[in-house]
């Protein structure tokens, strides 16, 4: 820790254990990620990739060990500095694309980018007023990605982020992740497919 530069973020876990439904998913997991780094969490199905992300996001309580973010905003807790992109897309089918996005921007608060601008970046600017219920799976994922851009958070927790994205979408998303890392953010992604950016591998639950 002593070589940590002032203001540089480090997300680390020491001896993290996770128990779901009385069954130990993993135990004694150590990990670390510094600003500008992407960590790809890999492992077979059920090895606890999603559980690890939810532990970091504060949505699960660790059965042991500790997870901490150093060098972040001291006023905020770790979950408050994270973006969590899960399997479920957090979109309301009755609301339009723009309404969905501006709601999350208003609710999550903090430093933000224009909604129209981020919709253009993810390629949804033609569907702004369409109810989200009419979007395809790939478009829904793009709209979820627009949330990551609109509201700025240093830590991105991504669960299978490239699911349902077409090749062009995956390239676009790779670019977004690179930008985020270049700005000093960090990414923890649970994935089976290659992320499309340089990343360090964190294997949990033994060989696949």
């Amino acid at each position: 820790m002593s070589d940590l530069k002032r203001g540089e973020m480090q997300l680390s876990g020491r001896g993290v254990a996770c128990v779901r439904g009385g069954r130990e998913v993993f135990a004694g997991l150590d990990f670390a990620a510094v600003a500008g780094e992407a960590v790809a969490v890999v492992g077979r199905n059920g090895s606890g990739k999603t559980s690890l992300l939810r532990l970091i996001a504060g949505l699960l309580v660790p059965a042991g060990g500790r997870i901490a973010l150093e060098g972040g905003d001291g006023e905020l807790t770790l979950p408050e500095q994270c973006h969590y992109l899960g399997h479920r897309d957090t979109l309301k089918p009755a609301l339009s694309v723009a309404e969905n996005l501006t709601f999350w921007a208003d609710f999550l608060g903090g430093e933000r980018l224009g909604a129209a601008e981020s919709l253009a970046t993810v390629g949804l600017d033609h569907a702004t007023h369409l109810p989200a219920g009419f979007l395809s799976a790939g478009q829904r994922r793009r709209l979820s990605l627009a949330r990551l851009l609109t509201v700025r958070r240093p830590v991105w927790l991504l669960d299978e982020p490239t699911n349902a994205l077409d090749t062009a979408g995956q390239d676009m998303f790779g670019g977004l992740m690179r930008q985020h890392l270049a700005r000093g953010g960090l990414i923890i992604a649970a994935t089976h497919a290659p992320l499309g950016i340089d990343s360090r591998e964190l294997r949990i639950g033994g060989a696949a």
Partner: protein
Amino acid sequence: MTALSALVRRDIRIALRVGGGALIGVLFFLTVVVLMPFAVGPDLALLSRLGPAILWLGALLASLLTLDRLFMADHEDGSLDLITMSRTPLELACAAKALAHWLAAGLPLIVATPVLGLLLNLDMVATGAVALTLLAGTPALTFTGMIGAALAVTLHRGGLLMAVLVLPLSIPVLIFGVAASQAVIVGPMTFGAPFSILCALSLVSFVVGPFAAAASLRHGLD
């Protein structure tokens, strides 16, 4: 405040759009009250004596009907995860959701009451009294019902559990709501005493409801 008003506006907007819960509650209320005169028969005196009780029962059941979706929809699409993680305290977010639910589903019931009072042979004063007690009492139904809705989400059980949990909590509200309305119509009790207790129940629920619901949601994190 931006965050909370955004949450309130979103929930009201969803409730008022096609497929939202607001209309379902009012339609149910309407159905119960409209059918009652046919079931009771053409005894006008009996109808006006039962009127406040029928309106209150209708409103209670209508608010229960839509309450179980309060957190369920957000839980199913993952929004609840982001609300839990956000910088807004979960207690305030719960209170905002309950407020939105009351504005979208509770307020229309009160607006419909004067119309339905006609069907139950209630005069102007009696209808006004029932509407006033509903205005004071339905927030208590929403805010206590929210506790049940939060438990239903964290225990992964649906509406039935919700009804079992919430009904006992709403019985005092029902008793004092009907008592205050009856006091105006038949006497001999004063309106003030039961009405004050009704207001007190609502105020207590404003304090207890959000904290209990937030505690239940946090405890049930998974």
